[in-house]
Structures are given as structure tokens and as C-alpha cells.
């Protein structure tokens, strides 16, 4: 029995609007997802009843705010199966989480050390490492995964005894490929490297278990998993978080300060300077609750079904090039020779179909694919089969309209 997204639609009122007199078809979920009412309600409730600065005061509002804030940490810890809630560090998003690690490990790197990433990375999991390499004299190396994400035996030579950091995405945002994380992490750990997984594109779709993954760090953003913008998470193993030099300093993250010295606080606080995004934290916990209340496997199967359906319909069209895997992706990334993706995008938009055309913050991957950019339709659990078909129909219309006679 196939999953029926229609029960979810009422939770996302934004989806029932018209876009230029057409029903909105929102297929830009890899950029950001829409938020269920329970997330909006959690934010409202917080501001209407509990708002106060956390940890600092001792009054009824600050007690309530602090409790809800720390309960949210607990919720997120459970959501990714982290052993302790002190392993959950709040960040602005995946980007800040990765920067925090890149800055925090700087003191351990020496000239000639190696930082290894894959060729499928988002700029957020590339530029911070590249800049770290510039600052330290370390060498940035790139494991050349194919667009299918296959592992080739010769890749093992990329992991050397100089590999100090290995950072890889779980799923490519640009083309939807799942990377061979397990074997890559094994190799990295054999070399004693710190390992970071960029889970930004995974959390909305896959149940995450950081204990099974066994990486040192796991980074993700709330806004891509039905939560608010401005909030994300850096998970880390205890020893891994402990070695990080604090990326940001100020209030909250200190124990004692004099003009000459500062004693930092314990985890998680030592990595959380300043007033946190309290409403974001509370909204993110509500998003975790929303997802946890669903049959995650059914959602995932449905998202795969939608993407596979689009793949199979478009794949038959001779002039469409698809870069996404045929199976087990939640998005379809494509281009059409001799037609600019922005032209396709504009026509889709004029019909109310929201997708994304561009390089998806992955210039090196685009270079590897030999294109300037792709057109990407990315799915979330609330998308319907009608929407998937509408994307295909309108895209084919656009190709017709834009082909030179």
C-alpha cells in the first residue's frame, strides 16, 4: 500500500497557494523544506508564553525557557541517536557547524598534513577545508567519486598516514547521489583521521544513527528537515568536541574571565557563545517530533518513488541528460543540451512549478559533469504523484517551446 501524502498537506498551508494562477508545485526541497504547523505553533507558543534568555536568569520564564531549550537538545540527541545531549552543539546551520570544526582543528594541523574530501561536496564542505589548508600549509585532496558514488579499490590510496581530516557528504545536494560512507569512514579511521559527515541532505529523508555511522562529527541544518532557518547542529563525539578550539567566544561559553585569561566552560556550552537561537532550537525540536511521529521508512520509500517515477519518465526522452542515480535518490538533476537551464526554469516558474537551476553550490562537481549547472527537482514527503507528473509535463512543454525549430 503506497504512502498517501494527502494526509500531510493540511499541515503545510503554504503548499495550497496559487502561483501565477497555477497551483504551486514546490519541488525545491533540497534548498529548503516547508514547515509543518506544529513547528510554527512551537515558535508562537514559545514567544507568547515562555520567552526569556536561557541559562542566565532564575525566574519563572527563564526556567521554562531553559528547560524547553535543554529538552530540545535531548530531542535532537535522540533523533540522531547521540549518546549524550552534551554532544549536540547548536549552530546557525550546517555551514557554521563545518566551519566550527575547520577552525577548531587548526591547532592540530601541520604543514604537509592532508585533508581529504570527495568530489561531490557542497561548497560548505569544501571552502572551509580549503581555507584551513591555506592557513596551515596542509594539503587538500579530493577523492574523485563518480556521479553514481561508486567506490573503486584504488581510492584507498587517497587515505594516507598524513590524512588528518576526512570530510564527506552523505548525500550530494546537486545530484542526489548517496556516497559510500561506510567504506570511506573505515579507511579514514584506519589512518586515525578525524571524520566529519555533512548530513545536510540526509536528515530530512533518512533516519540517522550517529553511533552506527561512528563518525567524529555530523553536521546538519534545521531548515532542510522541516525546521526553522537559522538553526543547525554539530554533533560530535566527546573527545572530538573536547579538542576543538572554540570558534566563537563571549558570554555563555566561559567559566571565568579576567582581562588576562579566560577559563572556558564545559561541553556543550564552551562551543556555544552568546545568546542562542532559542526559538530556532525549539522549532527544530518540533521538526524532529514531526518526523519521529511519521513512519520514516514509508516517507523515504515515497520520496524514492517520486524521484524514480520522474527519472523513468524523462529518461526515455532522448534529449534529456540525467545526472542523478536511477534508484534511491530523492531528487532528479538534469540538463537539456542546447537549452539553457535558466530558460527551462523560467518556464516552469511561469507554470507554478518551483525547482532550482544552477550550480547548486557545487562548482567542482559541475566541472566534473562538464556542465555549468543543472535543473533540479527535489522531493519532500508532502509532494504528490500529480506534482511529479506536472513537473515532467511542464518540462517537456518547455523543451518544445525552447527548442530551435
Amino acid at each position: 500500500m503506497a504512502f498517501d501524502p494527502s494526509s500531510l498537506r493540511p499541515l503545510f498551508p503554504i503548499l495550497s497557494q496559487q502561483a501565477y494562477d497555477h497551483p504551486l508545485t514546490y519541488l525545491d526541497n533540497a534548498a529548503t523544506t516547508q514547515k509543518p504547523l506544529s513547528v510554527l505553533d512551537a515558535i508562537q507558543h514559545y514567544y507568547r508564553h515562555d520567552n526569556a534568555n536561557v541559562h542566565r536568569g532564575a525566574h519563572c520564564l527563564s526556567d521554562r525557557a531553559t528547560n524547553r531549550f535543554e529538552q530540545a537538545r535531548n530531542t535532537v540527541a535522540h533523533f540522531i541517536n547521540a549518546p549524550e545531549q552534551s554532544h549536540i552543539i547548536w549552530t546557525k546551520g550546517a555551514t557554521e557547524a563545518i566551519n566550527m570544526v575547520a577552525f577548531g582543528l587548526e591547532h592540530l594541523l601541520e604543514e604537509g598534513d592532508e585533508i581529504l574530501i570527495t568530489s561531490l561536496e557542497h561548497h560548505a564542505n569544501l571552502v572551509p577545508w580549503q581555507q584551513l589548508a591555506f592557513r596551515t600549509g596542509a594539503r587538500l585532496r579530493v577523492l574523485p567519486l563518480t556521479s553514481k558514488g561508486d567506490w573503486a579499490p584504488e581510492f584507498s590510496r587517497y587515505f594516507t598516514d598524513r590524512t588528518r581530516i576526512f570530510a564527506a557528504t552523505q548525500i550530494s545536494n546537486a545530484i542526489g547521489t548517496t556516497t559510500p560512507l561506510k567504506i570511506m569512514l573505515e579507511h579514514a579511521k584506519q589512518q586515525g583521521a578525524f571524520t566529519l559527515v555533512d548530513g545536510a541532505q540526509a536528515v530530512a529523508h533518512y533516519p540517522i544513527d550517529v553511533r552506527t555511522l561512528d563518525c567524529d562529527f555530523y553536521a546538519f541544518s534545521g531548515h532542510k528537515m522541516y525546521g526553522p532557518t537559522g538553526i543547525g547542529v554539530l554533533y560530535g563525539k566527546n573527545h572530538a568536541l573536547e579538542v576543538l578550539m572554540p570558534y566563537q567566544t563571549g558570554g555563555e561559553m566561559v567559566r571565568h574571565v579576567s582581562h588576562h585569561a579566560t577559563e572556558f566552560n564545559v561541553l556543550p556550552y564552551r562551543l556555544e557563545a552568546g545568546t542562542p537561537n532559542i526559538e530556532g532550537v525549539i522549532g527544530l525540536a518540533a521538526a524532529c517530533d514531526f518526523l519521529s511521529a511519521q513512519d520514516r521508512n514509508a516517507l523515504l520509500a515515497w520520496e524514492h518513488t517520486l524521484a524514480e517515477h520522474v527519472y523513468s519518465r524523462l529518461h526515455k526522452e532522448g534529449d534529456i541528460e540525467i545526472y542523478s542515480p536511477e534508484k534511491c535518490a530523492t531528487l532528479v538533476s538534469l540538463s537539456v543540451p542546447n537549452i539553457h537551464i535558466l530558460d527551462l526554469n523560467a518556464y516552469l516558474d511561469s507554470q507554478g512549478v518551483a525547482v532550482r537551476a544552477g550550480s547548486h553550490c557545487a562548482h567542482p562537481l559541475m566541472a566534473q559533469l562538464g556542465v555549468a549547472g543543472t535543473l533540479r527537482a527535489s522531493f519532500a514527503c508532502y509532494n504528490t504523484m500529480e506534482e511529479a507528473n506536472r513537473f515532467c509535463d511542464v518540462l517537456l512543454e518547455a523543451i518544445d517551446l525552447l527548442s530551435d525549430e
Partner: protein
Amino acid sequence: MTDSLGQQKPVNIKAQLQACRSKEETFKALVTLSKTLPRLSAEEKIEDNKIKGCESAVWLITTETNGVRHFKADSDAKLMRGVLVAILSLVEGKTLTDIQQMDLKTELAELNLASYLTSSRSNGVLAICSQLQRT
């Protein structure tokens, strides 16, 4: 309908775009207009002529004879070529001073092209406008 350069008369372009009552009609009108833009040669499509800040590649060549300006432009995106036809129809053959005194944003908005003028960086129309008004 088209002059020797293959360009439509400004007045006609204006009427065509203003008649559009939906995003879809504007899209189709721009595709039609795009066909009237003479393409640049490979030698003209060099980095120096490229406008920064557009997601699609846009090249613009400005010449001046007897104090008035002439423009040639091209893009790898069809819709942008249509937009270029519309923009250039506003400025072609004018003096720099005249062009600088124009409120291009408003004029383009009157052509139903407001949505191409969003502050979204992926769209380079604003960059084109400021390039046109540069000395």
C-alpha cells in the same frame, strides 16, 4: 517590422510586452523577441565583454559614434536575449547623459519585466542596467 540590424522597433517591443497578462505570456513574448537579437561572434564573446553578476553569461559591447551610443549584446540563455532586446530598445542610439538620466528599473517594470528585477543575485538584469549607465 525589423530594421536592417534585425532589431524590432522599440515601440513595437513595448506594445508586445505590455500586452502580456501573465508570466507565461511574458515568457513567450521574450522567447519571440530573443529571435530578433543578432548573435555575437565567438571573438566578441570574450571575458572583457562579459557582465559580472549574471547567472547566465551575458556579453555587452558598447560603441559611440557622434556622441550617441550603440549596443550589441548576447547571452547563452534565450530569455535573457529577449530581455536584452527589451533593454537595448530603451537605450539604443541615445547619449550617455540621456541614458544616465533614465530610470531603467521603472521603465522595465512598465514592460512587465519587474520580476526580472528582483534583488535575487542569480538574475543579472540590474548588473546590465548599471553597466549601461557606466561611462
